[in-house]
């Protein structure tokens, strides 16, 4: 999962970037509205954390422009917590908002909810046959037993699990799992897929030659109407 953080306060931005990376997200930062807007257009982020008051382009203007082309989920951070501000914030196209100062747990939970909603996943635990991906605890179990996976392996599995039933190309994986500062030209991806297959069974992640990887949807995943 890749997150963009648009925040002009450097201390807060760096703190958030650190938090996101510790949580296993790939995170990019932008110090003002224009830079944030450019980055949001360049790359398909899984979510954007956007400060309401920004130099260059304020949060509302940012959203107005972004919504012309992108449906990326946006979490608005606002220091103003009046009803008018909250309504203005949501009506301008934000998917969620959080008032400053916030508690990190709440920010992370809301972010997970935004991402789940975006991928139409019902709850925090994704069931893939006998393998279960717990997106809250960031844990993987196979037949009820914890499987030790590295952060990167977990991120890869979680992304494929959210998109289960669909082929995910290698470039998509690179775009969503690595931030702008990481070297994406390495062949780390194959190593991680290989490790996951070794730990969770060779059949879980299938390779579609020439296009990418897929986790097949099980019957249980068919949305109940």
């Amino acid at each position: 999962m890749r997150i963009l953080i648009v925040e002009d306060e450097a201390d807060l931005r760096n703190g958030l970037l650190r938090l996101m990376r510790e949580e296993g997200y790939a995170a990019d930062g932008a110090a003002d509205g224009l830079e944030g807007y450019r980055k949001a257009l360049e790359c398909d982020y899984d979510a954007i954390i956007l400060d309401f008051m920004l130099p260059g382009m304020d949060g509302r203007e940012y959203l107005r422009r972004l919504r012309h082309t992108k449906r990326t989920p946006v979490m608005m951070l606002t220091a103003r917590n009046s009803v008018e501000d909250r309504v203005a914030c949501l009506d301008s196209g934000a998917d969620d908002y959080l008032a400053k100062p916030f508690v990190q747990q709440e920010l992370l939970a809301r972010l997970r909810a935004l991402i789940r909603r975006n991928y139409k996943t019902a709850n925090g635990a994704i069931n893939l046959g006998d393998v279960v991906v717990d997106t809250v605890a960031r844990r993987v179990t196979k037949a009820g037993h914890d499987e030790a996976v590295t952060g990167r392996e977990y991120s890869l599995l979680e992304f494929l699990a959210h998109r289960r039933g669909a082929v995910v190309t290698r470039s998509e994986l690179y775009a969503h799992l690595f931030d702008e500062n990481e070297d994406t030209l390495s062949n780390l991806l194959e190593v991680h897929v290989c490790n996951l297959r070794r730990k969770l069974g060779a059949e879980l992640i299938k390779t579609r030659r020439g296009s990418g990887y897929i986790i097949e949807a099980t019957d249980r995943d068919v949305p109940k109407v």
Partner: protein
Amino acid sequence: MIFQSIRWRILAWNFALLAATATVLLVAFYRHERQNRLQEADLKVRQFMTQTMGAMGELVPGLGGPRGAADARPPPAVRPRVGDSPAQRRLKAEQAVQLLAKEGAWCLGATIDGKVTFRSSAAPEVDTLMPLCVEELRVEDETPSPGRPLDVVLSHRGQRVLIHRPPGQNFAVFGLNMADTEKYLSGLAWRLTFAGLGVIVIGCSIGWVLAGRSLRPIDRIASTAEAIADGDYGRQIDTAGTENELGRLAAVLNDTFAKMNAARDRVTQFTADASHELRTPLTVILSDSQGALRHERTPEEYRTALETIKQSALRMKAISDGLLELAHGDAGAPPPQDDCDLADLADESVALLARLAKEHGAHLVAKLEGAPVKGDAGRLGRVVLNLVINAILHNEAGVTVTVTTGVEGAFACLTITDDGRGISEENLDKIFERFRRVDSTRSRHTGGAGLGLAIVKQAVEAHGGTITVESQVGHGTTFKIKLPAAIIT
């Protein structure tokens, strides 16, 4: 109470005035009319008396003969002739009286003790009349006027009565039936009463409408004030079509409401800004402390987190200090009137800031001449310090900051000029506003809370002075402070 309202009071006064005026006018009119009718009746009675006096002289012994020649002569058929017997003369006289007594007129002859000796056909019952006549004559006799006939006029039971008594024992009563006149007068009284009531009702209705019309602006003012009290702060009183005193009142109130609304908006804005400014460093503190406590960290990581937290706390301190200073200034206590000199204050500031200037590669130049003022030396010193620090920190290395003081006419002046990057025209208007920073990304390393220039402006204005700023992008900025110069003793 509804009857306590101005409209009802106006109506009550209107009613009282109208009722009094109508009553006085109509009663006067009625009395005048009645008087006229009575005089007319009296005239008729007297005329009748004159006409019948000749005949009555025959019928009532001692009444006296005819007075006027023609008037007193009875018609020829009943005129007494020479040679008529007394009975014939009396019969003729009676016929003459009957002939003359028309249109409600009548007459009586009587002795002084009330015994009727003659009675014309239309005469009323005498049971109550005679005692009255006797009593009247007795009263008149007590004021003696000997040798002259006595005439008394009075009204009795719808009759106008004239008692005629020549000196002697017998008297005659002449009367006129007033029934028609009474009927006319009572009809008139009713008509006048109805007319009066009509005038009062119409007058009060018009008064009610007029009072309502002239009081309508008060209703509008009241309803608008109620709406404002209920939280609709933007409301204005509709003053269309009201150009009287109430219209002026409404305009004044509108102006007051607008000013209060603007003041309220400023306070709301300021509170929101202050809250926002305090929340931002608070968020950093919370975020970094939570981040640091999530896992075990290296000492270096803890140090970095604590350093960030300390910076944020310092920023919060700067903001709350600034807000406190502004709040003190807003409270409006006049500054103390100590003797001080802007040149000394500038000199101190330049000395204090020499090291900071050196660190930032700025050149400080002071051209100081005496500029004595009265005021709070500490507060004015912070003003100078604040402006010089701004000039150093908000420009690149190599900038020259010139501080000049001197007296211009009645003013002590201080200018701080730099040849730095300048401020764009649109931002120039905003720099004295609270929490307005021209460039928010720069505020972090300069540690500004966005209150410095607002505090400077407030301090200068509290001392009765002005601060102006001129700037050209790329050429530099000049702040100029003018304070009333103190007279050197």
